[in-house]
């Protein structure tokens, strides 16, 4: 194995592949990054039995072959290399890496022990990469982070014809995002539960190409697997990850409720005020939002401790309401709203509140992204 490659191309591809390597691998070879040279170019792979990452980039291949080296170390080295062409070759049991006058010699691990990466399933459809990245960042805002409830750490993808819906919930809030896409078959109907962390990472890393190809193989064809492929860093990047199993809560029906109060607030001012007032909200204590008389009053803290309050302008339709929220849940939803004004819809102070972006006060909400939060029961 021997090749020459541009420094930035190598550093990018190595960093991207190494990112998904396990920090505490169950078997030592999984800490490795597989380097392969073929007639197509240079191929870098990482795998932890759950998620696989493969980057294919152009390189001047002198000799075909493969080698397995520590991914972490290779990533650190590539990051620090000078801006010169890099020569990599396998010499016996060591990989030598030369860049300008810097030389490294790396220990290799046994290639034959490295597991086979899963095949990318057949393409199911494709989506614009920028739209997909935004949609994913919005959907994952409500995903659970508690590994004890693996089901809720996933984002559910529902493909129906030319729309993919992404939804997530951690039991306390829920998100629903609809995205147009181009399915291979127009009458496609499929669903998949994808680990939120992998999805968010992948969507972000495939932003530089125009499209992302999505490929799903459902559980009835062996193990459920989803693959994403896109163009980035002068090559093709592909991630596959194992699907989560289980019956995902029926999130969609939660969004179809009537409201007693609808309020419009400028998104940026609401974010700033919540952030300020929440400074005095101790762990697990809410920020209280009172909508009345054309303004929104935000309050936090208790009589024994520090207190804060602030009033901002709001347009209110319907009954006045006072409702408490975990400020982090509120901020995580508001931070991914792309519209200048946010519409908040309430029924009661113990029922979920629905957030959606609007172009201006009074306009119909942009229902492509909706975020639902369950309140904290206020003590009077």
């Amino acid at each position, binding site marked *: 194995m021997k090749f020459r490659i541009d420094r930035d191309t190598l550093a990018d591809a190595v960093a991207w592949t190494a990112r998904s390597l396990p920090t505490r691998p169950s078997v030592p070879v999984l800490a490795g990054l597989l380097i392969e040279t073929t007639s197509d170019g240079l191929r870098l792979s990482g795998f932890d039995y759950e998620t696989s990452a493969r980057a294919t980039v152009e390189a001047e291949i002198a000799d075909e072959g493969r080698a397995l080296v520590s991914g972490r170390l290779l990533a650190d080295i590539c990051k620090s290399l000078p801006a010169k062409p890099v020569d990599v070759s396998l010499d016996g049991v060591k990989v030598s890496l030369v860049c300008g006058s810097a030389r490294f010699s790396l220990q290799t691990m046994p290639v034959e022990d490295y597991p086979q990466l899963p095949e990318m399933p057949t393409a199911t459809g494709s989506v614009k990469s920028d739209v997909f990245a935004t949609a994913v960042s919005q959907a994952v805002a409500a995903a659970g982070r508690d590994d*004890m409830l693996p089901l809720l750490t996933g984002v559910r993808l529902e493909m129906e014809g030319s729309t993919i819906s992404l939804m997530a919930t951690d*039991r*306390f*809030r829920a998100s629903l995002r609809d995205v147009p896409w181009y399915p291979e078959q127009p009458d496609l109907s499929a669903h998949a539960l994808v680990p939120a962390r992998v999805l968010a990472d992948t969507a972000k890393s495939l932003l530089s190409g125009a499209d992302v190809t999505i490929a799903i193989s459902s559980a009835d064809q062996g193990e459920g697997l989803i693959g994403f492929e896109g163009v980035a860093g002068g090559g093709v990047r592909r991630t596959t990850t194992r699907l989560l199993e289980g019956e995902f809560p*029926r999130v969609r029906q939660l969004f179809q409720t009537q409201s007693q109060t609808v309020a419009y607030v400028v998104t940026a001012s609401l974010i700033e005020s919540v952030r300020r007032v929440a400074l005095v909200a101790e762990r*697990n204590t809410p920020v209280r939002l009172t909508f009345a008389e054309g303004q929104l009053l935000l309050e936090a803290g208790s009589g024994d401790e520090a207190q804060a309050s602030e009033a901002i302008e709001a347009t209110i339709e319907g009954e006045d309401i006072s409702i408490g929220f975990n400020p982090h849940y509120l901020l995580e939803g508001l931070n991914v709203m792309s519209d200048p004004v946010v519409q908040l819809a309430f029924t009661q102070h113990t029922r979920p509140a629905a957030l959606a972006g609007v172009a201006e006060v009074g306009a119909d909400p942009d229902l492509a992204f909706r975020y*639902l939060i369950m309140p*904290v*029961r206020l003590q009077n």
Partner: protein
Amino acid sequence: MFVSVEGTILHADLDAFYASVEQRDNPRLRGRPVIVGSGVVLASSYEARACGVRTAMNGRQAYRLCPQAIVVPPRMTAYVAASRAVFEVFAQTTPVVEGLSIDEAFLDVGGLRRLRGAPSGIARDLRRDVLDQVGLPISVGVARTKFLAKVASGVAKPDGILVVPTDAELEFLHPLPVERLWGVGTVTSATLRAARIRTVGDLAARGEKGLVSLLGPGVGRHLHDLAHNHDARRVQVGRRRGSVGAQHSLGRTQPSPAELDAVLLALVDRVCRRLRAGGRTSRTVTIRLRFGDFARATRSHTLPVPTARTQVVLDTARELLRAARPSIERRGVTLLGVAVGGLDDGPEQLALPFDGTTGAELDTAVDAVQDRFGTPALSRAVQLGRDHGPAAPLLPD
């Protein structure tokens, strides 16, 4: 000028509580060795203890040590009623009562000198009142610190009183064996004995540095402070419990995963009901295991949001148990426990109503039925025909 040489903290501890209640209610048992609980010894009278019977001992072993003992089944409701009556007497004595468990409490009588006299007098009155009004023997230690009062009541047992004068604290403390100290169990005791530390005096002579290097910083400093009677904690009224737990001993035959799950369900149901009865929420779920070789282990998980919902605690406990399954299969399991900790009184984060319910409605309905008609009135179908034994009574929250 009159200078008090008596401390103002009382540690009152009922003697062989469950067994004493049995002897009180059944004259035939008086003066005879009594064991409460057949499978595992829940309590034993002093007559039985004289033969070597100890709490938590296997029933067969206890019977071998003391064949003449009378074994009675536990009557938890009677113990709860007796405990309430005793705490009533505590409350008549002083407003500053910190309950430690169902059968012991700290009382601060510092403000009562002009009303009720010296602490030792109050302690004697307390013992007499508990005997007259509830019919149970209680031992009381009187000292300047909580720790010393507890040691004193232990030395005073059974049915005794011990006052440690403030000018003779170390003279009292130093000749005692190290096992009398809070936090010295079998392991620490063995370490200390190996280092030829037998009495509290030996411990005090070692100095803080020596103890830290022997036992580690936490335990070392703690024991150093105790050996010098440094204990600044005050008697706290209304201190709320930091955790709620329940456990169940398992028989000799290995339970199937389904049986183990049924036990877990019963424990979670019991613990969560108690959690809600106190109006609390919990952040940490812990399962306790005792393996076939009697080694113990705990597994715990901290939730992102505190909860009082049975289903949430159950999901977490099941996941913890599932993770421990390989060890259970290899080593066998003889005890399973569930505890919820990190208790909080803060406002409750509500959960989304998936399928029209948040789980709160179900919990509330089950609690209401059980409060009105008793716990057995409503149970899970999987528990029909199973008996997970009586629930150990606890200090009222």
